[in-house]
């Protein structure tokens, strides 16, 4: 009898706990979650980011020899980006540092690490990704179609934190414009992970479908953290 009472108590406690957890977050429609996340992102002073490409390679040059692998860096609103871009060339993996300030861009020389003005043919421009007009905040706010809430999920990089997991579709031209042509001009499946309390966008996963002849889809995973931090990003000193 005593044991039954203990079990009943535990069940009631569990139900109450689940109820508390469920009511911890607002039950919002998917559009509203994304809209609040877009607003939050646009209001941030800065953040850190990591863009990783996996699956089918994406080339930065017309000859198809330099492929993009990852870019990690810091963004300070409205248009300062400091990033380290890893590219894969035949038999060689190398990194280029890029700084963008007010639309002007510099990069480090592959061999010496010395700063130089960016080659205009170089097709990775990180500031475009975070541009309030055409970048991720704008796409989140206006361009995503038919979002669906998949549930609450954790990502391994942020253990113990449940995030809204949503799925939606991004128009191809938005992705193409945002990435300066690195992503094909086709509609993309997008998965988003958003903090249910702050509405910080933790992760965006873009699935670029395989073109005829490709072996697999290209996956673009964009992670954000250090929300609201500011970073001192200034034009580099160029030695002549």
């Amino acid at each position: 009898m005593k044991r039954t009472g203990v079990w009943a108590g535990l069940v009631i406690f569990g139900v109450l706990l689940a109820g508390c957890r469920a009511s911890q977050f607002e039950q919002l429609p998917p559009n509203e979650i994304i809209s609040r996340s877009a607003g939050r992102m646009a209001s941030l002073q800065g953040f850190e980011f990591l863009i990783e490409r996996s699956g089918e390679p994406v080339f930065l040059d017309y000859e198809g020899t330099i492929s993009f692998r990852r870019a990690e860096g810091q963004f300070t609103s409205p248009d300062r980006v400091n990033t380290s871009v890893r590219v894969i060339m035949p038999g060689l993996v190398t990194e280029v540092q890029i700084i963008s300030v007010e639309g002007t861009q510099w990069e480090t020389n592959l061999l010496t690490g010395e700063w130089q003005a960016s080659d205009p043919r170089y097709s990775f421009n990180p500031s475009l990704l975070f541009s309030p007009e055409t970048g991720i905040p704008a796409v989140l706010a206006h361009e995503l179609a038919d979002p669906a809430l998949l549930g609450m999920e954790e990502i391994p990089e942020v253990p113990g934190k449940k995030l809204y997991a949503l799925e939606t579709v991004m128009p191809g031209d938005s992705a193409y414009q945002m990435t300066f042509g690195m992503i094909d001009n086709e509609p993309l499946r997008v998965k988003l992970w958003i903090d249910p309390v702050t509405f910080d966008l933790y992760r965006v996963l873009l699935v670029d479908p395989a073109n005829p002849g490709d072996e697999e889809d290209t996956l673009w995973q964009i992670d954000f953290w250090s929300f609201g931090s500011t970073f001192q990003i200034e034009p580099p000193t160029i030695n002549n």
Partner: protein
Amino acid sequence: MPASTKTQPGLLLALISIPIFIGALDLTVVSAVLPHVIVDLEIPLQTGLDDAAWIVTGYLLAYSVSMTFMGRLSDLYGRRHIYLIALVIFAFGSYIVAVAQGWPTQLALRISYLFVSGRLDASYVTLYVLIAARMIQAFGAGTMVPVGMALVADIYPADKRARSLGVIAAVDTAGWVVGHLYGGIIVRFWAWELIFWLNLPICLIAFLLIWYLMRGAPQVRSAGSMDWFGALLITAALALLNIGLGTSTDGVTLNALDEKSGLSPYSLPLVFAAFIFLVLFLWRQKKARYPLLALSLFKRQNYLAASLANFLVGFSLFVAIANVPLFINTLVATSLEQGAWDSGWMLSALTIPLALASAPGGWLSEKRGYRLPAAAGLILAVFGFMLMRSWEPATPYAILAYQLALSGIGIGLTMAPIAAAVVNASPPDQRGISSALVIIFRLIGMTVGISSITTYDLLRADALSEMLLSAQPTLSETVRVGMEVTEQVISETFVIAGMVAALALIPVLSLKSTFNQTSEVKNERE
């Protein structure tokens, strides 16, 4: 008193030798496949080369460290047990290397995210897992050499012991001699991970056979205790030395984007700390009741001189071993597969003559004393290194091979006399540890060689690139200058290797003559 077993000693010697051979093979196998591994792991050249070099250095370091004290541990706890445990450690390390990019990296990432925020670079996490696994492998492989030698010494009667110890030493040398070629062949046709997968069935068979065949053998155990403090001190000294020599400010961080490569401010303090730990180790060995190393041996002139020569020969030898793949992969080969294949064959032009010349070196030292063949060999090696400094991309492979063979023959002629000088200078009951010391000093020389030469290469390449490049270089200019700089740096390191080999002439010329050697033996007999 040899331990009695029902099994043929020859069969046991062969069984013990196989894992030792594979362990030594894995010491150099990576020099041929390293470019593959770096690209496969997506490690960037600028910031990752220093760390990636630890795939080689870490193995050398753990291999040398385990050799310094695991032999003593087997004296205390039984050789069979320690040998079998070492075999399991080696196999486990091989498995982790083979699967490093899979679950070990995922596990390391998950654990790391419990403690760090932000995002970790999975490529580097895999690299560190790989380095740790290589060190586990090496700890097992290094342990097997002195314990294998001691096992053999237990099995064989005194009059046949020297030859069987020689077999183990030869098997160890043969392993690292053919390692590059083996690696080159594997990556030409298969993935580099296969090298490590192949270790597993061999280790399993060796484990079962040694466990079964030696189950009746009495476990010879010494009295006394293990000098753990001494082991800790020598480990710290060797580790700090390697980290110090291999440390440069390669990490161009996001917060210090305009930092240049250069020697880290930690380098000299680390090297100094290594020196302090070495002094402490020597002090400890002098005071300890059961030391790991009988320092009194180094009072014998031949012992000290030959050990020093071994260290310097190890240094210059590894410069050549590192430079050949670098030269071919950077300046000659058009693909990584071709680079690994060509490097493997070209290194054989150094290592096979080296192994073959050991025999006449030993014969000459018996007939004419240690000094003459050792000095002649060093002069030949220096000559070869000086010829190699003029290598350029257009140099035909035949010329490279002939010059490498010159140095290989030279070093080969030197090895046997200096090894014999150490072993013959030791009393009979110390010959086991002395045989291991011959390998240890050469390995430490190789470890210091790879660490310091990698740092030199990076610093020098950086300085030369700055000097030669224009303010706004085009991609083609950058590539051209990069190749010129690599050629120049390789040329300079061959000169350094030649100078270090020439420096080894000093201890070699101080070796006592045959007359004294005979006296030593006579004294010993009396």
